């Protein structure tokens, strides 16, 4: 029961991330900001998905999400700093 509720919450969080990223692109025209916000919400969703009993594929997916998030985050920082130059 709790697991189902938490997984629905994860879906809602991911959907909120998509909405936020879309609005951020439309309002600010900055893809880097939109991507950062999207990654934040997706991280929240993936953390919610880790609640409850886990399998190795779940763990692998979570680890991959963090790696992608870190790579994208580093890339965004590099892009931002090159924009300021």
């Amino acid at each position, binding site marked *: 029961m709790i697991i189902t509720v938490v997984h629905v*919450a994860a879906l809602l*969080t991911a959907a*909120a991330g998509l909405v936020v990223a879309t*609005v951020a692109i439309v309002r600010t025209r900055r893809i880097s900001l939109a991507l950062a916000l999207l990654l*934040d919400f997706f*991280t929240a969703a993936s953390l919610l998905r880790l*609640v409850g009993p886990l399998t190795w594929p779940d763990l692998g997916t979570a680890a991959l999400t963090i790696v992608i998030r870190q790579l994208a985050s580093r890339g965004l920082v590099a892009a931002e700093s090159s924009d300021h130059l």
Partner: protein
Amino acid sequence: MTIDASLGHDLADAVDFMVQVVEAAGAAIIFAGAVSAFARFVRVAFRREGMAPFAQVRLDLGRFLVLGLEFQLAADILRTAVAPNFTSLAQLAAIAAIRTALNFFLGREIKEELELVRADQAAGSAPTAGPASDQRESDEQA
């Protein structure tokens, strides 16, 4: 022997219940953070105030995520008390490592984001921009 087995079973049930409570609390915190960040974003998205409000939204969401992660790590630690076999322990170790790594990276990102917000406020025209404790106030007033 039977009493020992019964006690062990009771202990496992009690720990399992505590794990569920702590994990649910962590999930509730993370979801509350996402809802709060979404509401704040909707509020600031339709104003023309530069990038600082967006950074503040990310900062707040990051804080909620870190707090929720702490609860989930606490649940992992509780689980180790009744892990029945080596596979369960290995999975616990993996998930604890993932959550600890994410906690570390989130903490670092929050620090960087905070510095960006401070720099943005210092560079802004508001001469009254104060220390970190005043950030939310100045954001609300703006």
